[in-house]
Protein backbone atom coordinates (compact mmCIF):
# COMPACT_ATOMS: atom_id res chain seq x y z
CA UNK A 1 0.00 0.00 0.00
CA UNK A 2 2.75 2.43 0.95
CA UNK A 3 4.81 1.30 -1.99
CA UNK A 4 1.90 2.14 -4.21
CA UNK A 5 1.55 5.52 -2.53
CA UNK A 6 5.22 6.18 -2.88
CA UNK A 7 5.21 5.28 -6.55
CA UNK A 8 2.44 7.75 -7.21
CA UNK A 9 4.21 10.28 -5.12
CA UNK A 10 7.45 9.57 -6.92
CA UNK A 11 9.36 12.67 -7.77
CA UNK A 12 9.49 12.01 -11.47
CA UNK A 13 5.73 11.59 -11.71
CA UNK A 14 5.16 14.63 -9.61
CA UNK A 15 7.56 16.66 -11.69
CA UNK A 16 5.52 15.95 -14.83
CA UNK A 17 2.19 16.38 -13.07
CA UNK A 18 3.24 19.68 -11.57
CA UNK A 19 4.15 21.07 -14.95
CA UNK A 20 0.71 20.33 -16.30
CA UNK A 21 -0.89 21.71 -13.17
CA UNK A 22 0.92 25.03 -13.29
CA UNK A 23 0.16 25.36 -17.00
CA UNK A 24 -3.48 25.55 -15.99
CA UNK A 25 -3.15 27.41 -12.75
CA UNK A 26 -0.98 30.30 -13.85
CA UNK A 27 -3.48 31.75 -16.34
CA UNK A 28 -6.34 31.02 -13.97
CA UNK A 29 -4.56 32.99 -11.26
CA UNK A 30 -4.08 35.92 -13.62
CA UNK A 31 -7.76 35.94 -14.57
CA UNK A 32 -8.99 35.68 -10.98
CA UNK A 33 -6.69 38.36 -9.71
CA UNK A 34 -7.53 40.78 -12.51
CA UNK A 35 -11.24 40.23 -11.98
CA UNK A 36 -10.79 40.68 -8.25
CA UNK A 37 -8.78 43.87 -8.60
CA UNK A 38 -11.17 45.39 -11.11
CA UNK A 39 -14.17 44.37 -9.01
CA UNK A 40 -12.58 45.59 -5.85
CA UNK A 41 -11.36 48.92 -7.13
CA UNK A 42 -14.22 49.90 -9.43
CA UNK A 43 -17.37 47.95 -8.71
CA UNK A 44 -17.27 47.67 -4.96
CA UNK A 45 -19.14 50.59 -3.35
CA UNK A 46 -17.29 53.00 -1.12
CA UNK A 47 -17.61 52.09 2.52
CA UNK A 48 -19.81 54.49 4.42
CA UNK A 49 -17.44 54.55 7.40
CA UNK A 50 -13.99 54.01 5.97
CA UNK A 51 -14.23 55.68 2.61
CA UNK A 52 -11.92 54.21 0.01
CA UNK A 53 -9.22 53.14 2.41
CA UNK A 54 -11.10 49.92 3.03
CA UNK A 55 -10.14 48.69 -0.45
CA UNK A 56 -6.87 47.35 0.89
CA UNK A 57 -9.08 44.58 2.22
CA UNK A 58 -8.66 42.86 -1.14
CA UNK A 59 -5.02 42.28 -0.41
CA UNK A 60 -5.10 42.12 3.35
CA UNK A 61 -7.77 39.54 3.96
CA UNK A 62 -6.70 37.04 1.28
CA UNK A 63 -3.09 37.18 2.40
CA UNK A 64 -4.10 36.84 6.06
CA UNK A 65 -6.21 33.83 5.20
CA UNK A 66 -3.41 32.36 3.11
CA UNK A 67 -0.96 32.78 5.96
CA UNK A 68 -3.12 30.39 7.97
CA UNK A 69 -4.02 28.13 5.05
CA UNK A 70 -0.38 27.60 4.04
CA UNK A 71 0.46 26.66 7.59
CA UNK A 72 -2.32 24.12 7.71
CA UNK A 73 -1.21 22.56 4.42
CA UNK A 74 2.31 22.41 5.79
CA UNK A 75 0.96 20.56 8.80
CA UNK A 76 -0.67 18.08 6.44
CA UNK A 77 2.62 17.63 4.63
CA UNK A 78 4.34 17.18 7.99
CA UNK A 79 2.10 14.26 8.87
CA UNK A 80 2.83 12.52 5.59
CA UNK A 81 6.53 13.07 6.10
CA UNK A 82 6.63 11.61 9.57
CA UNK A 83 4.21 8.75 8.99
CA UNK A 84 4.85 7.68 5.42
CA UNK A 85 8.09 9.44 4.58
CA UNK A 86 6.62 10.85 1.39
CA UNK A 87 9.38 12.65 -0.48
CA UNK A 88 7.01 14.98 -2.30
CA UNK A 89 5.69 16.16 1.04
CA UNK A 90 9.23 16.88 2.23
CA UNK A 91 9.73 19.08 -0.77
CA UNK A 92 6.34 20.72 -0.42
CA UNK A 93 7.07 21.57 3.20
CA UNK A 94 10.41 23.07 2.39
CA UNK A 95 9.04 25.14 -0.48
CA UNK A 96 5.89 26.27 1.32
CA UNK A 97 7.59 27.90 4.29
CA UNK A 98 8.96 30.95 2.45
CA UNK A 99 5.64 31.42 0.66
CA UNK A 100 3.75 31.25 3.93
CA UNK A 101 6.17 33.70 5.47
CA UNK A 102 5.63 36.09 2.57
CA UNK A 103 1.85 35.93 2.93
CA UNK A 104 2.19 36.58 6.62
CA UNK A 105 4.49 39.48 5.98
CA UNK A 106 2.07 40.86 3.43
CA UNK A 107 -0.83 40.57 5.86
CA UNK A 108 1.21 42.40 8.48
CA UNK A 109 2.25 45.18 6.16
CA UNK A 110 -1.18 45.71 4.58
CA UNK A 111 -2.75 45.46 8.01
CA UNK A 112 -0.58 48.18 9.43
CA UNK A 113 -1.10 50.36 6.35
CA UNK A 114 -4.81 49.92 6.94
CA UNK A 115 -4.36 50.50 10.64
CA UNK A 116 -2.88 53.98 10.14
CA UNK A 117 -6.16 55.57 8.89
CA UNK A 118 -8.35 53.27 10.98
CA UNK A 119 -6.73 53.28 14.37
CA UNK A 120 -4.41 56.22 13.94
CA UNK A 121 -1.29 54.11 14.44
CA UNK A 122 0.76 51.66 12.43
CA UNK A 123 0.87 49.09 15.12
CA UNK A 124 -0.94 48.17 18.31
CA UNK A 125 -0.21 45.20 20.50
CA UNK A 126 -3.57 43.73 19.78
CA UNK A 127 -4.08 39.98 20.15
CA UNK A 128 -4.67 39.22 16.48
CA UNK A 129 -1.88 41.45 15.29
CA UNK A 130 0.63 40.01 17.69
CA UNK A 131 -0.40 36.45 17.04
CA UNK A 132 0.06 37.04 13.34
CA UNK A 133 3.52 38.29 14.21
CA UNK A 134 4.11 35.05 16.11
CA UNK A 135 3.09 33.17 13.01
CA UNK A 136 5.78 35.02 11.10
CA UNK A 137 8.30 33.94 13.69
CA UNK A 138 7.09 30.36 13.40
CA UNK A 139 7.65 30.43 9.67
CA UNK A 140 11.06 31.98 10.16
CA UNK A 141 11.89 29.33 12.74
CA UNK A 142 10.97 26.54 10.37
CA UNK A 143 13.10 28.09 7.66
CA UNK A 144 16.00 28.60 10.04
CA UNK A 145 15.84 25.00 11.21
CA UNK A 146 15.82 23.76 7.64
CA UNK A 147 18.82 25.88 6.80
CA UNK A 148 20.72 24.72 9.84
CA UNK A 149 20.61 21.06 8.86
CA UNK A 150 22.76 20.21 5.89
CA UNK A 151 21.06 16.97 4.83
CA UNK A 152 17.79 17.99 3.17
CA UNK A 153 15.86 14.86 4.08
CA UNK A 154 16.85 15.09 7.71
CA UNK A 155 16.03 18.78 7.62
CA UNK A 156 12.58 18.05 6.25
CA UNK A 157 11.75 15.64 9.03
CA UNK A 158 12.98 18.05 11.69
CA UNK A 159 10.90 20.83 10.16
CA UNK A 160 7.89 18.50 10.11
CA UNK A 161 8.14 17.93 13.84
CA UNK A 162 8.40 21.64 14.45
CA UNK A 163 5.46 22.41 12.18
CA UNK A 164 3.27 20.01 14.07
CA UNK A 165 4.30 21.41 17.44
CA UNK A 166 3.42 24.88 16.18
CA UNK A 167 -0.08 23.93 15.01
CA UNK A 168 -1.42 24.85 18.44
CA UNK A 169 -0.95 28.49 17.49
CA UNK A 170 -3.35 28.46 14.56
CA UNK A 171 -6.59 28.26 16.53
CA UNK A 172 -5.20 30.87 18.88
CA UNK A 173 -4.68 33.28 16.00
CA UNK A 174 -8.04 32.50 14.49
CA UNK A 175 -10.10 32.84 17.63
CA UNK A 176 -8.08 35.59 19.25
CA UNK A 177 -10.59 38.26 18.20
CA UNK A 178 -13.40 36.35 19.85
CA UNK A 179 -11.49 35.49 23.00
CA UNK A 180 -10.24 38.96 23.61
CA UNK A 181 -12.32 41.90 22.60
CA UNK A 182 -9.78 43.76 20.59
CA UNK A 183 -9.39 46.50 18.06
CA UNK A 184 -9.21 44.15 15.13
CA UNK A 185 -12.27 43.36 13.05
CA UNK A 186 -14.28 40.35 14.17
CA UNK A 187 -15.41 37.78 11.65
CA UNK A 188 -17.23 39.75 8.95
CA UNK A 189 -16.81 37.58 5.94
CA UNK A 190 -16.54 34.12 7.34
CA UNK A 191 -20.00 34.25 8.90
CA UNK A 192 -21.38 32.70 5.76
CA UNK A 193 -24.98 32.40 6.85
CA UNK A 194 -25.35 36.14 7.28
CA UNK A 195 -22.26 37.92 6.05
CA UNK A 196 -22.13 41.45 7.41
CA UNK A 197 -20.72 42.82 4.20
CA UNK A 198 -22.21 44.12 1.00
CA UNK A 199 -22.40 41.55 -1.82
CA UNK A 200 -20.53 43.82 -4.25
CA UNK A 201 -17.75 44.03 -1.74
CA UNK A 202 -17.85 40.31 -1.04
CA UNK A 203 -17.60 38.91 -4.56
CA UNK A 204 -14.27 40.57 -5.47
CA UNK A 205 -12.96 39.49 -2.11
CA UNK A 206 -13.85 35.88 -2.80
CA UNK A 207 -12.34 36.13 -6.27
CA UNK A 208 -9.13 37.48 -4.79
CA UNK A 209 -9.06 34.76 -2.19
CA UNK A 210 -9.37 31.99 -4.76
CA UNK A 211 -6.80 33.79 -6.86
CA UNK A 212 -4.37 33.93 -3.96
CA UNK A 213 -4.88 30.21 -3.43
CA UNK A 214 -4.18 29.32 -7.02
CA UNK A 215 -1.22 31.67 -6.97
CA UNK A 216 0.14 29.85 -3.95
CA UNK A 217 -0.26 26.49 -5.63
CA UNK A 218 1.36 27.54 -8.88
CA UNK A 219 4.23 29.32 -7.11
CA UNK A 220 4.67 26.22 -4.99
CA UNK A 221 4.85 24.06 -8.09
CA UNK A 222 7.59 26.19 -9.59
CA UNK A 223 9.63 26.09 -6.41
CA UNK A 224 9.06 22.39 -5.97
CA UNK A 225 10.23 21.57 -9.45
CA UNK A 226 13.65 23.11 -8.82
CA UNK A 227 13.86 21.39 -5.47
CA UNK A 228 12.90 18.03 -7.02
CA UNK A 229 15.77 18.34 -9.45
CA UNK A 230 18.12 18.96 -6.55
CA UNK A 231 16.75 15.98 -4.63
CA UNK A 232 17.02 13.57 -7.49
CA UNK A 233 20.11 15.14 -9.04
CA UNK A 234 21.93 11.82 -9.08
CA UNK A 235 19.18 9.88 -10.88
CA UNK A 236 19.08 9.27 -14.58
CA UNK A 237 15.89 11.08 -15.34
CA UNK A 238 17.20 14.34 -13.94
CA UNK A 239 20.50 13.93 -15.72
CA UNK A 240 18.58 13.45 -18.96
CA UNK A 241 16.52 16.57 -18.44
CA UNK A 242 19.52 18.64 -17.49
CA UNK A 243 21.63 17.49 -20.39
CA UNK A 244 18.86 17.89 -22.98
CA UNK A 245 18.01 21.36 -21.75
CA UNK A 246 21.56 22.56 -21.07
CA UNK A 247 21.44 23.49 -17.45
CA UNK A 248 18.87 25.98 -16.18
CA UNK A 249 16.33 23.75 -14.45
CA UNK A 250 13.69 26.46 -14.42
CA UNK A 251 13.48 26.38 -18.16
CA UNK A 252 12.11 22.81 -18.15
Amino acid at each position, binding site marked *: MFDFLNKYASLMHFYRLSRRLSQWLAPLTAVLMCAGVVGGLWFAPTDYQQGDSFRIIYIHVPSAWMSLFVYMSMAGAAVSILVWRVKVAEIALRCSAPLGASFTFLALVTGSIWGKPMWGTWWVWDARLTSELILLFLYLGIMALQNAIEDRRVAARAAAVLT*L*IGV*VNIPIIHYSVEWWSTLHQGPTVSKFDRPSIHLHMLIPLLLMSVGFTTFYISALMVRMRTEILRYDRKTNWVREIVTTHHGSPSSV
Partner: protein
Amino acid sequence: MSPQALVCAVLRREFRRTARNQSEAGHPLIFFVLAVMLFPFALGPDTALLSVVAPGVIWVAALLAASFSVEGLFRSDFADGSLELMALSGAPLALVGLAKALAHWLVAGVPVLLLTLPLAVGLGLDPGVLAILMASLALGSGCMSLLGTSISALTVGLRGSGMLVALLILPLYIPLLIFGASATANAALGLSAAAELYFLAGLLVLALTLTPWATATALRIRLS
Protein backbone atom coordinates in the same frame (compact mmCIF):
# COMPACT_ATOMS: atom_id res chain seq x y z
CA MET B 1 13.37 -2.94 32.44
CA SER B 2 10.16 -1.29 33.55
CA PRO B 3 9.29 2.24 32.39
CA GLN B 4 9.46 3.51 35.96
CA ALA B 5 12.96 2.14 36.39
CA LEU B 6 14.05 3.84 33.19
CA VAL B 7 12.59 7.17 34.25
CA CYS B 8 14.24 6.79 37.65
CA ALA B 9 17.60 5.99 36.10
CA VAL B 10 17.43 9.09 33.92
CA LEU B 11 16.24 11.26 36.81
CA ARG B 12 18.96 9.99 39.12
CA ARG B 13 21.58 10.72 36.50
CA GLU B 14 20.27 14.24 35.91
CA PHE B 15 20.13 15.01 39.62
CA ARG B 16 23.64 13.75 40.11
CA ARG B 17 24.91 15.86 37.27
CA THR B 18 23.11 18.87 38.62
CA ALA B 19 24.54 18.28 42.07
CA ARG B 20 28.07 17.95 40.67
CA ASN B 21 27.75 21.03 38.56
CA GLN B 22 25.57 23.27 40.62
CA SER B 23 26.76 26.44 39.05
CA GLU B 24 25.56 25.40 35.63
CA ALA B 25 22.18 24.47 37.04
CA GLY B 26 22.13 27.74 38.92
CA HIS B 27 22.60 29.85 35.81
CA PRO B 28 18.95 30.12 34.75
CA LEU B 29 17.94 30.86 38.34
CA ILE B 30 20.49 33.61 38.72
CA PHE B 31 19.43 34.92 35.37
CA PHE B 32 15.81 34.94 36.47
CA VAL B 33 16.54 36.76 39.69
CA LEU B 34 18.82 39.31 38.08
CA ALA B 35 16.49 39.95 35.17
CA VAL B 36 13.66 40.74 37.58
CA MET B 37 15.87 42.77 39.88
CA LEU B 38 17.17 44.95 37.08
CA PHE B 39 13.72 46.43 36.56
CA PRO B 40 13.59 48.61 39.63
CA PHE B 41 16.88 50.12 38.44
CA ALA B 42 15.56 50.56 34.93
CA LEU B 43 12.14 51.98 35.78
CA GLY B 44 13.10 54.06 38.76
CA PRO B 45 11.61 53.81 42.22
CA ASP B 46 7.98 54.43 41.23
CA THR B 47 6.28 51.80 43.41
CA ALA B 48 2.91 51.99 41.73
CA LEU B 49 4.37 51.44 38.29
CA LEU B 50 6.52 48.58 39.56
CA SER B 51 3.65 46.65 41.08
CA VAL B 52 1.65 47.05 37.87
CA VAL B 53 4.39 45.65 35.68
CA ALA B 54 5.64 43.08 38.22
CA PRO B 55 3.60 40.03 37.07
CA GLY B 56 4.49 40.68 33.46
CA VAL B 57 8.15 41.13 34.27
CA ILE B 58 8.21 37.90 36.26
CA TRP B 59 6.47 35.96 33.51
CA VAL B 60 8.85 37.28 30.87
CA ALA B 61 11.89 36.55 33.01
CA ALA B 62 10.63 33.02 33.66
CA LEU B 63 10.09 32.45 29.94
CA LEU B 64 13.53 33.71 29.04
CA ALA B 65 15.15 31.69 31.79
CA ALA B 66 13.35 28.54 30.63
CA SER B 67 14.15 29.20 27.00
CA PHE B 68 17.81 29.23 27.62
CA SER B 69 18.03 26.58 30.28
CA VAL B 70 16.40 24.00 28.01
CA GLU B 71 18.96 24.79 25.38
CA GLY B 72 21.65 22.80 27.12
CA LEU B 73 19.41 19.90 28.07
CA PHE B 74 20.90 17.51 25.54
CA ARG B 75 24.06 19.41 24.66
CA SER B 76 26.60 17.52 26.69
CA ASP B 77 24.78 14.24 26.11
CA PHE B 78 25.21 14.82 22.42
CA ALA B 79 28.80 15.99 22.63
CA ASP B 80 30.04 13.14 24.79
CA GLY B 81 28.12 10.47 22.89
CA SER B 82 25.68 9.57 25.68
CA LEU B 83 22.74 10.36 23.45
CA GLU B 84 23.95 8.01 20.76
CA LEU B 85 24.36 5.41 23.44
CA MET B 86 20.82 5.90 24.73
CA ALA B 87 19.47 5.56 21.22
CA LEU B 88 21.54 2.43 20.63
CA SER B 89 20.54 0.97 23.98
CA GLY B 90 17.07 0.24 22.65
CA ALA B 91 15.40 2.16 25.48
CA PRO B 92 12.19 3.94 24.42
CA LEU B 93 13.27 7.49 23.67
CA ALA B 94 9.86 8.96 24.41
CA LEU B 95 10.28 7.90 28.00
CA VAL B 96 13.78 9.30 28.09
CA GLY B 97 12.36 12.57 26.76
CA LEU B 98 9.64 12.64 29.38
CA ALA B 99 12.16 11.97 32.13
CA LYS B 100 14.40 14.71 30.82
CA ALA B 101 11.52 17.18 30.80
CA LEU B 102 10.56 16.16 34.32
CA ALA B 103 14.13 16.60 35.47
CA HIS B 104 14.25 20.02 33.85
CA TRP B 105 11.07 21.07 35.56
CA LEU B 106 12.30 19.90 38.95
CA VAL B 107 15.71 21.46 38.56
CA ALA B 108 14.83 24.68 36.76
CA GLY B 109 11.05 25.14 36.93
CA VAL B 110 10.33 24.57 40.60
CA PRO B 111 13.15 26.79 41.85
CA VAL B 112 11.85 29.62 39.66
CA LEU B 113 8.47 29.18 41.31
CA LEU B 114 10.05 29.32 44.73
CA LEU B 115 12.08 32.38 43.84
CA THR B 116 9.02 34.11 42.50
CA LEU B 117 7.58 34.46 45.98
CA PRO B 118 10.20 36.78 47.48
CA LEU B 119 10.68 38.65 44.22
CA ALA B 120 6.96 39.34 43.81
CA VAL B 121 6.67 40.49 47.37
CA GLY B 122 9.69 42.71 46.88
CA LEU B 123 8.06 44.30 43.84
CA GLY B 124 4.98 45.06 45.91
CA LEU B 125 2.59 42.54 44.44
CA ASP B 126 -0.81 42.10 46.01
CA PRO B 127 -1.30 38.68 47.75
CA GLY B 128 -4.39 37.85 45.68
CA VAL B 129 -2.57 38.54 42.42
CA LEU B 130 0.45 36.66 43.75
CA ALA B 131 -1.59 33.48 44.23
CA ILE B 132 -2.87 33.61 40.66
CA LEU B 133 0.61 34.42 39.39
CA MET B 134 2.03 31.38 41.17
CA ALA B 135 -0.74 29.11 39.89
CA SER B 136 -0.35 30.29 36.32
CA LEU B 137 3.43 30.01 36.50
CA ALA B 138 3.20 26.50 37.94
CA LEU B 139 1.07 25.30 35.05
CA GLY B 140 3.03 27.34 32.54
CA SER B 141 6.44 26.16 33.63
CA GLY B 142 5.39 22.54 33.14
CA CYS B 143 4.45 23.35 29.56
CA MET B 144 7.70 25.24 29.12
CA SER B 145 9.78 22.28 30.22
CA LEU B 146 7.90 19.85 27.99
CA LEU B 147 7.88 22.05 24.89
CA GLY B 148 11.44 23.12 25.55
CA THR B 149 12.65 19.54 25.72
CA SER B 150 11.23 18.86 22.27
CA ILE B 151 12.77 21.96 20.76
CA SER B 152 16.06 21.26 22.44
CA ALA B 153 16.04 17.74 21.02
CA LEU B 154 15.25 19.09 17.60
CA THR B 155 18.24 21.41 17.57
CA VAL B 156 20.82 19.49 19.55
CA GLY B 157 24.23 19.46 17.95
CA LEU B 158 23.35 22.04 15.34
CA ARG B 159 25.67 24.97 15.00
CA GLY B 160 24.14 27.99 16.66
CA SER B 161 21.57 25.88 18.42
CA GLY B 162 21.22 28.64 21.00
CA MET B 163 19.67 31.04 18.55
CA LEU B 164 17.57 28.34 16.96
CA VAL B 165 16.15 27.34 20.32
CA ALA B 166 15.29 30.94 21.12
CA LEU B 167 13.76 31.51 17.72
CA LEU B 168 11.77 28.28 17.71
CA ILE B 169 10.72 28.24 21.31
CA LEU B 170 9.51 31.73 22.02
CA PRO B 171 6.62 31.66 19.52
CA LEU B 172 5.52 28.47 21.22
CA TYR B 173 5.81 30.04 24.64
CA ILE B 174 3.90 33.20 23.77
CA PRO B 175 0.45 31.62 24.11
CA LEU B 176 1.44 30.58 27.63
CA LEU B 177 2.54 34.11 28.33
CA ILE B 178 -0.66 35.60 26.98
CA PHE B 179 -2.84 33.38 29.15
CA GLY B 180 -0.63 33.74 32.17
CA ALA B 181 -0.52 37.51 31.88
CA SER B 182 -4.22 37.79 31.30
CA ALA B 183 -4.88 35.60 34.36
CA THR B 184 -2.89 37.97 36.57
CA ALA B 185 -4.39 41.01 34.89
CA ASN B 186 -7.86 39.68 35.68
CA ALA B 187 -6.81 38.99 39.24
CA ALA B 188 -5.50 42.53 39.57
CA LEU B 189 -8.88 43.84 38.47
CA GLY B 190 -10.59 41.52 40.93
CA LEU B 191 -12.05 39.35 38.17
CA SER B 192 -11.99 35.58 38.01
CA ALA B 193 -8.95 34.02 36.38
CA ALA B 194 -10.41 30.52 36.24
CA ALA B 195 -10.86 30.42 32.45
CA GLU B 196 -7.21 31.23 31.79
CA LEU B 197 -5.99 28.74 34.37
CA TYR B 198 -8.19 26.01 32.87
CA PHE B 199 -6.76 26.84 29.51
CA LEU B 200 -3.20 26.58 30.81
CA ALA B 201 -4.05 23.26 32.46
CA GLY B 202 -5.45 22.03 29.16
CA LEU B 203 -2.27 23.03 27.37
CA LEU B 204 -0.26 21.20 30.01
CA VAL B 205 -2.22 17.98 29.49
CA LEU B 206 -1.83 18.33 25.76
CA ALA B 207 1.90 18.87 26.11
CA LEU B 208 2.24 15.91 28.48
CA THR B 209 0.68 13.55 25.99
CA LEU B 210 2.23 14.84 22.79
CA THR B 211 5.66 16.29 23.43
CA PRO B 212 7.39 13.07 24.54
CA TRP B 213 6.72 11.61 21.11
CA ALA B 214 7.90 14.77 19.46
CA THR B 215 11.07 14.61 21.54
CA ALA B 216 11.70 10.98 20.62
CA THR B 217 11.15 11.66 16.94
CA ALA B 218 13.35 14.72 17.11
CA LEU B 219 16.17 12.81 18.80
CA ARG B 220 16.01 10.06 16.23
CA ILE B 221 16.13 12.64 13.46
CA ARG B 222 19.10 14.43 14.97
CA LEU B 223 21.06 11.24 15.46
CA SER B 224 20.54 9.94 11.94
